[in-house]
């Protein structure tokens, strides 16, 4: 009578205990497998988003005092307008929208306003993109809500700014920000008004990325390094965008599962341990007679540890199937962009086959030792 045969026969006899133990392993393994199956897809989706959306950047003169910059919203220093063309024609950077800006805070009509000059957006060569920032013709201005309200101005009205006449092409709706006290004009008009020809104090680069062969490696740091090479007298500020928000969300989910997986594992291990303890109690007399027949401690422990290993192996295979099925069914609903990346990951089966039996054996270690330590003389005298 081999130990393996004894274990199998016992499991078939005490089906309820066996099935409950198996259920615990299946739950833990399925959770692990479904998380990692969809997790890879989640990671890839974020990378794809980062790649497709890119970073939204503000490029300002390097000498800018950031304290002042954040207070005023613009740099007091300038850089050559040609920087935006240098950037646009550089082969190492990809972007969706580039625009040069010159802005200053000044007093006009007895009030403080931001005068913002915007150059027409530059799109990547050969690609037509819908402008992200409005384009203003020379001689026209867009005025912020607060200015329009307080001065009673509207679309089509003429205004005079420092001796030059402009037509209000757009009266902007209320934004609830400093944009309500902003006057937008063509970059060259503003440069003329401020006598700062060919100067800008900001470049807005939207969906900007380095061009690298490996799409998996594309970090802001790399982009910053590359920009420093092209525009040595500029520095870069990241505008938080959807990609970084998504990255944050993914990291949060990873942290969450980083807690959930060990928690579920501990609960399942405790569950298996309690069931094993009940199994030991139920088999006290059986253990006693085995001892009387000469079965040693190793063989008694092997009955319980072997049982746990078999449950772990079956649970790993079933859990892998369940977890993969769940991931394949629900993963594409959650990760729409990279749905086709959700596929069975056979290496997770290997991991489950190693980890589940090991964790089951660990769970029943104490019950197995209590079976070994049991005094057969006591149980065999019990009636």
């Amino acid at each position: 009578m081999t130990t393996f045969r004894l274990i199998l026969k016992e499991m078939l006899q005490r089906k309820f205990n066996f099935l409950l133990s198996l259920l615990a392993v299946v739950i833990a393994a399925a959770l692990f497998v479904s998380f990692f199956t969809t997790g890879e897809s989640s990671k890839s989706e974020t990378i794809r988003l980062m790649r497709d959306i890119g970073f939204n950047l503000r490029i300002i003169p390097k000498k800018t005092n950031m304290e002042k910059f954040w207070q005023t919203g613009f740099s007091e220093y300038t850089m050559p307008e040609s920087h935006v063309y240098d950037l646009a024609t550089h082969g190492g950077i990809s972007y969706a929208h580039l625009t040069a800006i010159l802005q200053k805070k000044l007093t006009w009509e007895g009030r403080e306003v931001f005068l913002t000059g915007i150059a027409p957006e530059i799109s990547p060569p050969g690609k037509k993109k819908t402008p992200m920032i409005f384009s203003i013709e020379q001689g026209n201005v867009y005025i912020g809500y607060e200015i329009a309200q307080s001065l009673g101005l509207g679309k089509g009205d003429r205004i005079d700014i420092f001796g030059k006449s402009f037509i209000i092409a757009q009266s902007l709706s209320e934004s609830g920000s400093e944009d309500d006290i902003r006057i937008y004009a063509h970059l060259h008009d503003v440069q003329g008004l401020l006598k700062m020809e060919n100067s800008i104090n900001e470049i807005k680069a939207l969906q900007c990325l380095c061009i690298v062969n490996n799409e998996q490696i594309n970090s802001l740091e790399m982009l910053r390094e590359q920009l420093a090479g092209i525009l040595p007298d500029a520095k870069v500020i990241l505008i938080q965008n959807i990609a970084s928000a998504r990255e944050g969300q993914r990291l949060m989910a990873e942290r969450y599962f980083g807690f959930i997986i060990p928690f579920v594992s501990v609960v399942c291990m405790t569950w298996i341990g309690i069931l094993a303890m009940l199994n030991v109690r139920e088999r006290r007399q059986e253990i006693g007679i085995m001892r009387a027949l000469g079965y040693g401690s190793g063989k008694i422990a092997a009955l319980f540890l072997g049982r746990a290993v078999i449950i772990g192996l079956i649970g790993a295979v079933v859990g892998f199937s369940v977890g993969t099925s769940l991931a394949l069914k629900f993963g594409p609903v959650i990760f729409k962009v990279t749905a086709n990346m959700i596929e069975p990951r056979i290496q997770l089966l290997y991991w489950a086959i190693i980890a589940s039996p090991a964790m089951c054996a660990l769970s029943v270690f104490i019950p197995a030792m209590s079976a070994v330590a049991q005094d057969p003389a006591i149980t065999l005298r019990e009636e």
Partner: protein
Amino acid sequence: MVRLDKASKTYRTKHGDVQALDRVSLQIQKGELVIIRGPSGSGKTTLLLSAGGMLRPTEGHVIVNNNDIYAMSKRERAIFRAENIGFVFQLFHLVPYLNIIDNVLMPTGVGRSRFGQKDAKEWLNRLNLAERMHHRPSELSAGEKQRTAIARAMLKRPQIILADEPTGNLDPENSDEIIGYLAEYHSSGGTVIVVTHGKAVDQYADRIVYLKKGHIDKP
């Protein structure tokens, strides 16, 4: 063959110490059939389990076949027990999930055994259990269960059979049958020690040892 040398056994309980055996010395020769008799709590089962290497005496020695069995390691003692001693209990102690033939084959799970299916079937035939071979213990009568336990104890032809109230749960007819098998084993040269209240086995006994409060007493 089996010798208890000033063997004492004290059980520690929450209500205080209980002296189950008190400096008992007893010698049983090879091929003897000895009955241990005495009132409940006199130490009969303790003596039997100590003689079988299952319960270490608090003091004294137990010598079986010239081996001080409690001087052996646990593992050595288990192997010694598997090769030399067979047990029969009042409650049969069959493994519920194994069929009858597998229960009889249980002793072969220890060490390298030269006994197997053929021997088990032979014993089952001899004990009129051939038709029950593939039944579970729950499907057997008490007498059949005890016959299965006897077959299991005798499978490896041990030199010593220790039986603790083997007829305690049986009707007189089944009791006689079980006693008959033990007597047959004794007559073939085996040593048998039986703890029993019943008188049926007396006619086959070489000796009756009376125990009272952990001491060997006169009848």
